[in-house]
């Protein structure tokens, strides 16, 4: 595997002609994510933001349970794991004891919107000065593509083999809109990584979310719509197209709440 890898050389200090390179805080290791998965892009965006803000030595991240469970293998800063869904509670314990550190969680839709719903809502309601990067790809990837709380109506998954029935399985959850009325939630934006254009917007949102915390403004969360070609049962290109045509229709992109 190693010999086939494309070697990307990181930007060196003082270089001005380089336009694209691996962020310094993104480790140079083999990627375990499936082809066409959005996690790699989102990991990278976070690292770019941390590098640009110069906060690497202050960052403490909390990795989720899900496909990104080994996010700490990619990130070159302090990270802890958390039990499934308890991620914002762990973040609360860290941020309250280390208010000068920059604390963020990275969570999937099962972690944040199913098993960890209470932790998410109450961390936001307490106005914890933390940042949540919420990756919404509408399925449980790591366990084999089961229905997530965010799975769209009619979507086929391992546990909705005839498609999600609203009558049987209920409705997909829009978490940002649930959090929006809470005074403790300060900055909420939904973005996507299905195109270069949207990926650039996603980076700007992640930057603003981290700045929200750096400036002590309180709870910030960015929901990133992401592709799961493997469990959507389609090519990477079609998966990206599905976000534009279907997913972003139900989960509208843009700022849900700001200060």
């Amino acid at each position, binding site marked *: 595997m190693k010999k086939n890898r494309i070697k990307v050389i990181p930007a060196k200090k003082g270089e001005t002609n380089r336009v694209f390179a691996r962020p310094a805080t993104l480790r140079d290791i083999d990627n375990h994510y499936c082809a066409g998965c959005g996690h790699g892009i989102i990991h990278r965006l976070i690292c770019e933001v941390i590098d640009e803000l110069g906060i690497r030595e202050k960052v*403490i991240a909390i990795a989720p349970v899900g496909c990104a469970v080994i996010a700490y293998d990619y990130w*070159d800063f*302090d990270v*802890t794991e958390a039990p499934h869904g308890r991620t914002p509670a762990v973040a609360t314990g*860290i941020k309250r004891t280390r208010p000068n550190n920059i604390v963020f969680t990275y969570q999937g839709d099962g972690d944040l919107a199913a098993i960890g719903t209470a932790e998410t809502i109450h961390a936001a309601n307490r106005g914890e000065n933390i940042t949540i990067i919420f990756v919404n790809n509408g399925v449980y990837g790591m366990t084999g593509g089961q229905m997530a709380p965010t799975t769209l109506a009619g979507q086929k998954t391992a546990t909705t083999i005839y498609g999600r029935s609203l009558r049987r399985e209920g409705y997909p959850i829009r978490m940002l809109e649930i959090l929006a009325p809470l005074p403790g939630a300060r900055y909420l934006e939904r973005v996507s990584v299905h195109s270069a254009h949207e990926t650039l917007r996603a980076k700007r949102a992640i930057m603003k979310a981290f700045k929200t915390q750096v400036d002590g403004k309180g709870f910030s969360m960015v929901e990133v719509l992401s592709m799961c070609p493997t469990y959507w049962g389609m090519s990477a290109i079609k998966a990206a197209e599905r976000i534009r045509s279907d997913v972003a229709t139900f989960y509208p992109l843009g700022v849900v709440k700001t200060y």
Partner: protein
Amino acid sequence: MGKKILMCGNDACGEGAMLAGCTFYAGYPITPQNELTAYMARRMVDTGGTFIQAESELAAINMVLGASASGFRAMTSSSSPGISLKQEGISYMAGCELPGVIVNIQRGGPGLGNIAPAQGDYFQSVKGGGHGDYKVIVLAPASAQELLDHTSLAFDLSDKYRNPALILGDGLLGQMMEPVEIRTQSSGNNIHNKPWALTGCAGRKPNIIKSLFLGDGVLEAHNVKLQQKYNTIKAAEVRVEMINSKDSDIMVVAYGSVARISKAAVAKARAKGIKAGLIRPITLWPFPEKAISEIADKVKKFLVVEMSAGQMVEDVRLAICGKAKVSFYGRMGGGIPTEGEILAQIEKIV
């Protein structure tokens, strides 16, 4: 001797934590431990620490996990049903080798049970409680003073071994008011002894805290390392109180509040001419199996008394290994064995 204050066991427990340098507490209301949560709420706010009334016991233990990962002394408390919910976090903390103190002021079970004292959580406390092969250091105080002293000690042991420690009390101990000397031998938190803590990676390589080990054989090696640590704790940290162990025909074995009652029953038996003694395990894990086994070389009758259907009695039988007759007397669901009941059992067996 320091100043003595009349305080309930729950408050004494909280003060023991403060004296040990605990700066983070998260909890969720449940009877009969509510005084402790309220005590921590006041003390943390007054001293600049952190108090959080969490949305659930699950959140509370994981806030403690986070604070502990940051290198601070952190505690949560609850009573039986709430402790069941905390088992997930305790298993993760054991797997991640994170310190932290958990207080269980036990009540009657199973299920919602009642709010009366009980000792039905012994198995849960000493056998692991959550999933996986792990152990938690378990201290069993028998007075308000010991709730203070043992809570302080629990922080030191927990930090020393990077392992969760549990205080196993009950509603009787938590609610009862007694004179308590405000004292501690704890050295307090020392962040410099925690190079593994998450502080931000300034001037060092990043720290990763995890219990996930996916590589071939890596998790087995991690488990072997944990077991070696548990063996070290077993060799070094057993604590037990013995009364009349040199010349008894019958030894009562009891812990916590039942040990207090048994002590009085043993004294009454002695007054009647029965040579009775008491073994009081102070650490329930590690269990004083060697001490009990040695006594069983001479004493041939044992009576285990618990506020349960018989849980610790299994560990006593394992320690004695058939060398002596082990009888059991227990009350459940909030029933408290009386001095008279225990004395009657002693008289029946001896």
